[in-house]
Every structure is written in structure tokens, then in C-alpha cells.
């Protein structure tokens, strides 16, 4: 009742305060269809404007308001671009509350007024930057690609490194230590191949293929101390499906988990993580650095048994002082018993939850339409199926913000092929909100883009490494050969 009064007063103020009156409109039950769908989403107080458009181009008026402020937007073509300054003011006032969005849409000579819908504004801010790779979802080939960073508070996007500068090679697996942009690494493949570790703007190129390991280092996860990075090594293959909803299958013929000691510049492992009989992969450290989570599947005959390989979610203790591991491996998800396959385990920075991806089989879930996210409460061991978060299409890679209140994940729900980043609120009670698409200035951006957002990772600030220096090191530095040590 109180809210309705506020709204009534506010709309009255709008009516009398506006230079332009609102049109006489027929009231329609239900909310207007917009893209992206921001109805009922929860957003951080420092997010960029949620520009949106009406589905179907038509003249419209949008009123975004809270108890004190409002923004009126008039559009001839149904596209609404919210001025940054006004938006920031509105968000600041709405933190912990909501913004109501009321839409007037012109159909022919008539105006229609839809029910307002809420956008909830959390008190918890989000990390200001998001890093990702932009790449065409090509099956075997790539062309232009790059690692980019986007300020989520506005629309600025910069290339950290674009492969036009490095002879069109491949770059991937960017990873940050505790969302710290000053401590990161990524790989380049084929030309200028190597692992590039960037610490406080100092760049080191590492040659990480050893005769003891299957491959050069692949999927990374930093130890919170920054002293180690867990990697997988993989022999990965790709092929196409003859039929069915999944176009492509990416699978490992073998994989192991190894560790890179940043200070000693050597690779080591543990026999429990380096077996022939199992495929160990996707290592990730707990935020306290005392536990390693990873996925493992019993080896199968590949590719013939590609759809029978199912990964368990396991964990093992780790002592960072001595570089030793525990004797017991805990199973958090038993693939045989549960019937599905786990990948991408990621523990929230507060250590309370573990987010992972689950699909029917295999480990490269972005190509599996059945792939969904799951949230494990590490204290209670209860699993949340995140129904509000998942969709009918693939949800795959994900990462946490530094305050554990937000996570970003890759989803192909828009069209089934192009991966888009979605951001989701996760409150301190462990309840996930409705996710929202990373906002863009141009509301047609995602419709027109032929690039996928790959490996979205939150970072606390801007990556400031000198791109000139990165290119120079890539092209001229022979790299440091990293040995594999048995202990």
C-alpha cells in the first residue's frame, strides 16, 4: 500500500513535472516484451546502463523510477539508451531497493501502457572489469580473436591483446589470481606459443611442454597466494556430430593435473593427479589455498566411447608450504551414481559455495545443450539446481566476483550458438537471482556480433600491462624452458 502511494505520488509528479505529458494510454495487463529481458533481474549498484529495446520497433516511452528519482526516455524506434550520469544517480539511490520500469508503447494511433516491472538493485557492488576472449564459434579454424577487458560500469572495452598484432595466432585461457589484474597469465598457441605470466607488469614467456607431460599447460587456476598455478595438461580432440542437438564434440584422449611453481619456475605433480587410468582435469584451488578441487573420469576408449565418459568432482588437501598433498581424495560428485558429468568447479572467494557445470557426459560443456550450472553448499553439501539461472540451452564456464556476491557465466540461450555473458546475483543466504545479460551501449550488439564471449573472468581493476611490451615479448623472447620435477 505504502509503495503504491509512493508510486502514485511519483507518477503525479512526473505528470506535472514533465515538460512533455505522458500520452493517454490503454492499460495492458502484463509487462512489455523487451530485449534484453531485465524484468525482475538483480543488478549491482555500479553496473553500466541497462540499455534495452522493445521487441518490435515502435515508438515508446520508458519511465525508470525509484522513490525519489526518475528518468524518462522517449524513443522513436523503441530503443532506449539511458544517459550514464542519470543512470548512476538512479542506481545510487536505488541500492538495496528496486527500480520500476514502466513502458508506454505506440501501436498505430494508440498508446498502450504496460504494467511496470522491477529491476532490483543490490547493495553489493560488482568487480569493475570483466575479461574475456572474443572469438568466432568456428569449428576448426579461427581468424581474428583477442583477449579483451570491459569496464562493467560503463561501455568501455579495450583489447588486452588482439591476434592481429601476433600474426593471427591463437590465444586463450586468461586467468587471474584472486581477480587481481596485476597477476595474470594466458597462453598463445601456434605462432609465439607459450604461457605468458604477467606479474606487476613484468612479462615472462614460458615454454611449458616437457617430455613428462602430455602437452603444454592448459586450464589454469591460481593458488590464492600467487605462488602456484594448477594446470591441466590435455590431449584434446574435436569432431562433429552426425546428428542430434549438439554440433561439436570436444574430448580429451588423456589429461592430467600438474602445478607450476611461480617462484622456482618448475612443474610438479602428484601421482594421484597424474594417472594413466584416469583423466584428471579442471583443477581449482580453494580460497584458503589448502584444498584442490578437480575433475576426474576413468579412462575410456576415445573417441568410440565419447558419450560414456563422465567426470567426478573430487578434492584433495594441499599444503602450500611443503607442496605436498593429502592422502585422501574426497568425492563431492559421484558421476557413476548420479549419472552425469562435472566440469569447471569454482569455489566462491568466501569459501562457502562451489559452482560447477553439469552435463550428461564429457568435459567441454559449451557444446552440450544440456549443460547447466549447479551450486554446492560446501558446509551442508546441498546442491542447488539454480533453476532461475539455467535455461534450455548450454550454460558453461563461470567465474566469481571477488566479494562472492556475483558470478558471470557463459550461455548460449539466445540462439544456441553464440556464447554470451550473463551476470547473476548470489546473496549471502545462498539464493541466486535472475541473471541478466551484460549490457551493451547498442541494443543490437548481440544480434549483430559474430563473436562469442569466451572465459568471462571478473577482475578488480583494469589490466594495465603494456600491449607493446606484450607483443615485443611474444615475438622476440625465446621463452624460459620450464622443467618438470618429480617432487
Amino acid at each position: 500500500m505504502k509503495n503504491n502511494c509512493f508510486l502514485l505520488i511519483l507518477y503525479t509528479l512526473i505528470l506535472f513535472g514533465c515538460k512533455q505529458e505522458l500520452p493517454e494510454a490503454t492499460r495492458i495487463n502484463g509487462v512489455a516484451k523487451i530485449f534484453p529481458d531485465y524484468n525482475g533481474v538483480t543488478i549491482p549498484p555500479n553496473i553500466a546502463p541497462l540499455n534495452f529495446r522493445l521487441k518490435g520497433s515502435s515508438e515508446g516511452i520508458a519511465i525508470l523510477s525509484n522513490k525519489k528519482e526518475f528518468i524518462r526516455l522517449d524513443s522513436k524506434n523503441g530503443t532506449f539508451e539511458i544517459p550514464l550520469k542519470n543512470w548512476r544517480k538512479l542506481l545510487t539511490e536505488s541500492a538495496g531497493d528496486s527500480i520500476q520500469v514502466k513502458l508506454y508503447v505506440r501501436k498505430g494511433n494508440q498508446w498502450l501502457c504496460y504494467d511496470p516491472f522491477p529491476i532490483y538493485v543490490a547493495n553489493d557492488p560488482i568487480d569493475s572489469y570483466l575479461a574475456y576472449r572474443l572469438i568466432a564459434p568456428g569449428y576448426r579454424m579461427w581468424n581474428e580473436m583477442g583477449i579483451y577487458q570491459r569496464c562493467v560500469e560503463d561501455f568501455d572495452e579495450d583489447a588486452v591483446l588482439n591476434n592481429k598484432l601476433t600474426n593471427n595466432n591463437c590465444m586463450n585461457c586468461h586467468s587471474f589470481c584472486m581477480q587481481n589484474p596485476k597477476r595474470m597469465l594466458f597462453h598463445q598457441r601456434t605462432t609465439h606459443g607459450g604461457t605468458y605470466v604477467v606479474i606487476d607488469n613484468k612479462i615472462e614467456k614460458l615454454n611449458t611442454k616437457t617430455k613428462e607431460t602430455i602437452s603444454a599447460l592448459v586450464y589454469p587456476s591460481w593458488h590464492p597466494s600467487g605462488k602456484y598455478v594448477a594446470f591441466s595438461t590435455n590431449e584434446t580432440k574435436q569432431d562433429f556430430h552426425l546428428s542430434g542437438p549438439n554440433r561439436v564434440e570436444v574430448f580429451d584422449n588423456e589429461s592430467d593435473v600438474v602445478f607450476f611453481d611461480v617462484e622456482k619456475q618448475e612443474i610438479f605433480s602428484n601421482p594421484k593427479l597424474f594417472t594413466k587410468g584416469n583423466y584428471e582435469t579442471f583443477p581449482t584451488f580453494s580460497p584458503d589455498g589448502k584444498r584442490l578441487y578437480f575433475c576426474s573420469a576413468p579412462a575410456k576408449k576415445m573417441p568410440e566411447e565419447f558419450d560414456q565418459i563422465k567426470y567426478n568432482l573430487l578434492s584433495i588437501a594441499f599444503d602450500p608450504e611443503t607442496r605436498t598433498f593429502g592422502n585422501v581424495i574426497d568425492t563431492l560428485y559421484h558421476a557413476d551414481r548420479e549419472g552425469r558429468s562435472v566440469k569447471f568447479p569454482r569455489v566462491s572467494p568466501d569459501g562457502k559455495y562451489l559452482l560447477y557445470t553439469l552435463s550428461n557426459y564429457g568435459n567441454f560443456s559449451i557444446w552440450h545443450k544440456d549443460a547447466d550450472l549447479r551450486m554446492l553448499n560446501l558446509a551442508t553439501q546441498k546442491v542447488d539446481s539454480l533453476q532461475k539461472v539455467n535455461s534450455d540451452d548450454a550454460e558453461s564456464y563461470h567465474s566469481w566476483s571477488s566479494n562472492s556476491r556475483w558470478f558471470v557465466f557463459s550461455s548460449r540461450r539466445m540462439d544456441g550458438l553464440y556464447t554470451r555473458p550473463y551476470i547473476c546475483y548470489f546473496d549471502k543466504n545462498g539464493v541466486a537471482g535472475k541473471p541478466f545479460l551484460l549490457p551493451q551501449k547498442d541494443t543490437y550488439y548481440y544480434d549483430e556480433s559474430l563473436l562469442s564471449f569466451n572465459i568471462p573472468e571478473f577482475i578488480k581493476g583494469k589490466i594495465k600491462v603494456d600491449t607493446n611490451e606484450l607483443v615485443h615479448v611474444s615475438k622476440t623472447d625465446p621463452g624460459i624452458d620450464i622443467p618438470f620435477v618429480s617432487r
Partner: protein
Amino acid sequence: MKWKAFIFWTFVFIGLLSFFYSFNIYLYKRQEELQFFIPQWPYIKSILWIPGGCCTALGQFFVQYYQNSLFASLLNSTLLCGIGIFFYLILQQIVQRTFNYLLALIPVLGLLKMHLRLNYVLDGTLGLFLMMALLFGFTLIQGKRRWLIYSVLSTLVVYSLAGQLVILYTALLFIVGCIHRFKGWQYTLLPMALGSILTYIGARFSLYIPLIEGLQPAEYHEMQLQPDSYIYYVWIRFVFVAAILLLSGYLLKHISWSKWWRKSLITVVIAIVLFDISGMCLPDPYDVQNRMADRISSLAQQKEWDAIIRMHQGKRITNYVSLNFLNMALAQKGLLGDKLFYFDQKGPKSLLADWNHTFFMSKLLSDIHFMIGDLSMSEAYAMDGLTLAKRKGSPRMMQRLVQINLIKGDKNIAEKYINLLSQMPCYKEWAEKYRGYLGHPDLMKLDNLLASKKAADPAVNDLLCLVETDSLWMMHIEETGVNKTALEYLGCSYLLAKELDKFKSLLVKIEDDSRWQKLPVHFQEAALILSIKDPSLLKSISIEPSISERFKEFQIHNKMEHPDNNQIASLYQLYGNTFWFYYYYKQLK
């Protein structure tokens, strides 16, 4: 004397137009299908924002209409002729001589050569056209102050529209300033300094490429042959040549022009140099071969199957790509199994050449697999082609992906591509037609192309690496409906590989299938060879009497144990268009 210049350049224009319209029309179509450009302001705005983006946007804007060969030829001729005219006029400002006509043609010929290459983008010539126009304007300015203002302003204009070309422009400004206006030449140092600073800023702070990379040869930039990358190598060469010619013009100015023999000698020497250069600038065998490939590809796109077949009749075919197109044309006409060996086939790769990770092969293989009904394979190649297209995508590959995804029922992604294509003027109509299928998939049954295709049965899912191509084609044959193309490709692949055991298994499989009662000619020919060892085969296979009779005659002629070349040649005259000759005498590499 102006009428002389008018007539000369009119002839040059007509010559260029004739050349481009006769030689380049297929190249234009390929260039058009290698770019993804939406002529809408938000899209264009994002390109214009970058220095040099104007050339990029304008280049792509024009290329989107390159399906119209006349327009493309006119545009290219106008640009090259325009550059020549500006160069001529600048030379005339230095010294008025007849040989300026010839000197001005040299850079035009150099650009002509570039315009024969697929990798060369129009943006480069647009930048040069702009530069030459402004340079000519510079020669008309009187007064040092106006000179200075014009040179600084034009430097800024060149930078904003053509990016790093500015440093080359200011270098030419300096040269022209020194030559044309010796007093006050130092005023050109200011725009040169400005151009250097702007280029340095662009290269160093925006593009992060070491400056030395601008001097690398064109091949080094294979994937980056666009002006907005750094500094177009073609620009460097053009300006280098222009500088030499301007200096040559200046030096020749000091030679007395009064004696007729001196005039003639100098003109003849320049003419000889021009003649030599023109030899290097005209199409070479590589360009001719590319043109052939582009022509076939264009004919295939327009479904001119008869023309493709006619192109190859009676000719020795030297490459698998041509054979792939030819055999695809035969299959489209339902003649693959009847006429395969009427042409010079070279083993199973004559049907499916190896994929060489290029856009061209991705497109070809996608088309062939689509025709046969291998939708997954076709989609894979189409997606690779879309990725490999130089300028952010390919509308042609997008069309294929629309078709495949509509057949598979993936409406969302089909709609995405339809929405994109509908914004491109040359694809709008096609896109709207296919948009109709989104809401009414039953209408696809009325579409000749789509109605015959179906998505693979999800119950039979497997990875393609685990399914041999012939097994895949066998699946199509076993499906309901009549997929004659799959049968022909499967049978012909066995025949081309001389795998008669497998071919026999195929015959046995289909012998009771009423859809395949009338076998293609070459299949019957192969059955006759098989019947030598297994006469019972002919009980269930119907062979035309004329083919049987001919086989008997062949067997009589073929009794020689070790025929010499003349005997083989005679046999070829009589039976060269049969599987029999291929089986017994064609060497497979």
C-alpha cells in the same frame, strides 16, 4: 591542349573498363562474398571512429555492390583513371611535357596489378585517390600562408579519413613542395612533422605494432592486408614510385625540349620503360588460374551447371578443384553416374578434394556436402568458411547456414543470420523469402532446394570421425525418399578408387530396392566387369543391351597383354568415356 588530355584519359578509362569487365568480374563476386558489412549508421559509425576508418567503411560500402560487375568495373576504372589524371596534372604543374601522359600511367599500372589480387582491398585505392586529389589541390594553392594552411588541414583530413597514409602524403607534399615551389619549401616541413606525429601516435599507441612492420612485404601481412591494420604496404610502394616519377619529371624539366630528336628519344625511352612495366603488371599465370577458379565458382553459385560442364568438355583437367565443380555440376544435372568418365577423372579426390583451410575450399566442400545431404559436414565447412572470410564474415556462408539450420529446426540461429542478411541490400530479398519459413516451416516443402534435404536421425548419432564417408552416404541412400546424388557419389567414389568389392556390396544392397532399378551407365559398366568373375550378378541387375554389346566389343579389343601407348590411345578413342578404360588403364597416383 586540354582536349588531348581528355581524349587520352578517356581512352585510358575505356581501356581499364574493358580490361576489368573482361578479366575481373569473377574476382569482384568473390571479394563481395568475403566481407560482412551492414550499411547501417551504428555499424558504420564504429568503423569511422578509427583513423583510416573512412577508407575502410567506404571500401566495404562499395564492395557490397560488387555482385554487379559493371558497377565494380566502372568504380575501379574511375579510381585508377582518377589517380592517373591527378598524377598527370601534378606533373604538368612541374613541367608541361607530353611524356607526362606516360609517366602518369606507371602508378596506374602498378595499381592495376594489385586489383587483380583477391587479397587486395579497395580501401587502399580509395586512400590513394584521396591523397592524389589533395596533393593536386596543393599544387593549385598560391601564397605561402594559404599553402601552409592547406597543407596542415589536408594532413589532418588525410589522417582522419585514411589513417597512417598521412605520413606518405606529407612525404609527397614535401617532395612536391620542394620541386614545385622551391622558395618556401621549408613550409612543408610542418605538415611532415604533423604527419609523422600522427602516424607515430596511431602506430605506437593505438595499434601496438612495431614501426618496422610497415616495411614488411605484403605476404607478411597476409591476414592483415587492410589499411586500418597499420600502413598498407601497397601505399608505401605507390608513394615510392610516385616520388621517383615526380623527381624524374623534375629532372627531365631541365633538359631542353626544343630539339625534336631529344623529345623523341626521351619519349621513346619512357615508353619502353612503361612497356616493360606493363608486362609485369598484367595478369600472370597465377592470376589466370585464379580467374578460372573464380569463374567456375561464380557459375556454380548461379547454378549454371551446363556452362560448367561445357567448360570442361574435351579438355585435359589438371586440378581437383575443377573436377569437384565439374562433378558437382554433373550430379546436379543427374548425370554423374552416366557421364563421369566422359571427363578426365583422377581418382576419388575428383569428387571431394582435400580441405586446405581456405575460404574457397570451405565453400566448395560445404556446397558439395549440402547437395549430397551431409548437413553436419556442410555446416562444419560453412562455419569454417564464415570464420575464414577476411572481412568479418561471409554472406554466402551465412546463407548456407540459414538453410541448414532451418532444415535442422534451429530457428533461433537461422533467424539471427536472416536478420543480418536482410540488412545487406543484395541479400535482403533472399532473406525475406527465408524469413517466411521461420514462421511457416511447412512452406519449406515447396522449396525445391530445402524440400529434398532432411536432418539426420538423432537416434543414429555418432561422431563423424567414426563414420566413414561411404557409410554416411549409404545412410542417405537407405533413408526414405530418393537421394540419387548420394547414390551416385557413393558408387562413383568406389569406381574412381577402383574398389570393385565395395561397389559390388553396394549393388547387392540396392538390387531389390525399386528406387534404384535403372542404374546409371557407369554402374552398369562396372557391373559387367564384376560379372566376369561372378556371372550371377547379372541376374538381378538390369543392363542395357547397347552397353552389353559395347562391353563385348571392348573385351575383344582389350585382349592385349601389354598394350603399347598407341594401342592404348586407340582404345581411348573408342572407349575413353567408359569405366572400363578407366579401370584397366588409368593410373591412380
